């Protein structure tokens, strides 16, 4: 799952980047509204975390222009502005959620996950793929009653493929949603990750849960 954070506080950028990555999100962080708008328009994000008081272009203008461009990416406003009128204005302009600073990091992550579920029309945080049960709230995977231990990146791949059940997900798409725009990994790393994931979730003698469509990508039916 890929998140864009548009926040001008460098210290908040650092903690959010670290925390969200550690929570399994691919994260891009930008520090002003102009750059944030460019990222939001040209990148593919599941959720945009948007501060309001931003240099160059303020957050509400970013939101307005984003919606005007036809983008329906879920936007969570993260702002120190706490007045009802300010929150209502943000929601009226097309934000999907509003969280005031200071905030609990766990709550931010939970709200991002809720927005992602909404995006994929999955109200139930528990997803199923064959014999696997994926609890997106607890970030756990089990086969029947037996837990399947996955690394955060393996879990992210599985969750991403399951939320796009029935759609082929390309390696570059996976790469982008796993590592964001930092260019720290290649498609080979994705292949290795998928291989490791298959070994952990596959039941011997059963058909592959994760199918490979050569030249296109991966698919979970």
């Amino acid at each position, binding site marked *: 799952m890929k998140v864009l954070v548009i926040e*001008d*506080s460098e*210290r*908040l950028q*650092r*903690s*959010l980047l*670290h*925390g969200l990555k*550690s929570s399994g999100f691919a994260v891009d962080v930008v520090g002003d*509204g102009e750059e944030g708008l460019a990222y939001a328009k040209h990148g593919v994000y599941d959720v945009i975390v948007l501060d*309001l*008081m*931003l*240099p*160059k272009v*303020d957050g509400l203008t970013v939101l307005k222009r984003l919606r005007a461009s036809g983008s329906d990416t879920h936007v969570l406003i993260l702002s*120190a*502005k*706490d007045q009802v009128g300010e929150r209502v204005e943000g929601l009226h302009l097309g934000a999907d959620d509003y969280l*005031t*600073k*200071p*905030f*609990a*990091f*766990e709550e931010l992550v939970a709200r991002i996950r809720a927005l992602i579920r909404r995006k994929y029309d999955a109200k139930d945080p528990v997803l199923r793929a064959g014999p696997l049960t994926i609890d997106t709230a607890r970030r756990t995977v089990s086969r029947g009653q037996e837990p399947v231990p996955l690394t955060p990146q393996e879990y992210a791949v599985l969750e991403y493929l399951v939320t796009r059940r029935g759609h082929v997900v390309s390696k570059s798409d996976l790469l982008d949603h796993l590592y964001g725009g930092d260019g720290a990994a290649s498609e080979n790393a994705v292949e290795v990750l998928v291989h490791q994931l298959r070994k952990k979730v596959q039941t011997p003698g059963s058909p592959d849960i994760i199918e490979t469509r050569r030249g296109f990508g991966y698919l979970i039916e």
Partner: protein
Amino acid sequence: MSIRRRLMLVLSIGFAALIVLTALYVERTTRVRVTGEFDAALVAEARALQTLIAEDESGFGEWEYAPECFPHFERAEKPDYFQIWLSDGTPLQLGRSGSLGADANLPRWGSLSKEPETRDVRLPDGRSGRAVQYAFVPVAEDGKGFAPKGRTLVLMVARGRERLDGFLASMRLAVFGAGAVATLLAAAFVWRAIVSGLKPIHAIAAQVQALHADNLGARVSAPEAPSELAPIVQQLNALLARLEASFERERRFAGHVAHELRTPIAELRSLAEVGGKWPEDLASTRRFFADVHEISGRMERVVVDLLLLARCHAGVEKFECRPVALRQVVRSQPGADRVAIEVPDDLVVDSDPGKLSLIVSNLLDNALSYRANGGPVRCVAAARDSRFVLDVVNPAEPLSEEDLRNLAEPFWRKDRARSPEGHSGLGLSLVTALAGLLGHEVGFTQDGTGVFRARVSGRLWNPDGRPKLSQRFVADPDREPEPEYKEES
């Protein structure tokens, strides 16, 4: 006591006194006049009787009184009376009215004045009456007075006062009754006039009573108020406007403080939660600690500035004025090397060196941080008469008149999102507060070319003409207006 009651009391008493005095005057005038006419009638009656007496050389000769012509002197019920005496008091047998009978006499008094004199008397039948008495010398038939030998007679005519008293009683009843009614009507009129007159005041009072902290935007409206109340309403509304502005400033200040604290607290909390949740990433954790340290330092600066601001506003911040070399103060500031300094070496000002340094550092920091397009910052100072003028000048983004007024407001920033990192928005507030404390003056202007000018002016050091050190500044109301400063070319 309320205005209504006081006015009611005073006006009612005043009207009542006026009406009573008027009634008394009318009663007295009428009584005197009616009594006078009554007396005149008595005198006329007496003169008529007098003409009936003729004197000849032998003395009192003829008495031409005919009772049938004067029935009122003869009747038995409520008659009039007359009686004639010799000047020695001897009553004349014939000179008396039939109503006196044979023995009764009128209460003659001793005066022998020839001018008719009237008095209240008790009549022989016991009634109250009015009598006229005068002395006269009977007239001879030839019309000449009998003065040398003539006898002086005394004539008294008396009449009952029933009709006079009846008329006077009716008159008094009418006058005092009318007075009483007039008093009541006046009181009612006064009451109505007061109620009507005070109505605008009550309307204003009701509007003022309805005011509270949440609706200070309301204004007192009294379009029907008399012109005397217009200045009061005007001043009241002006006071409300000032109060509203003050409340609004306080609200903004509280909001700004809360907002200024939200972001660093959010940063601290996020750093603490993320660092605590994934402590195994030592490099990030170390960086988080550095961030926490930096944030706490920034918050500490805000708190210190706020406390200083509060102490300045409360007038409890201590300071000590002494000679201060202005150029040294300017040159010692961080960032001074990026400023064109045009301050004479010998410019010594009367100020607190620490506080003045804070003022200059904030002005330079503000100019360097907000200069447009990295434009030049100049610090220019000069002496004008007994004062110094220090200008910090930089090109800046356009500022409206309202922006210029708001510059000294705590936490005010034209564009909060565009504020440079580390600026809380307290710098110019502190400059203004510190300058006020030291007795300096501060002004912010921007010319048509976008050049922003922060000006501080104050007294030059003058060891012969200044108060002792450590004394508090006392505003000098006689201080001359600031001379227009022109930069040296």
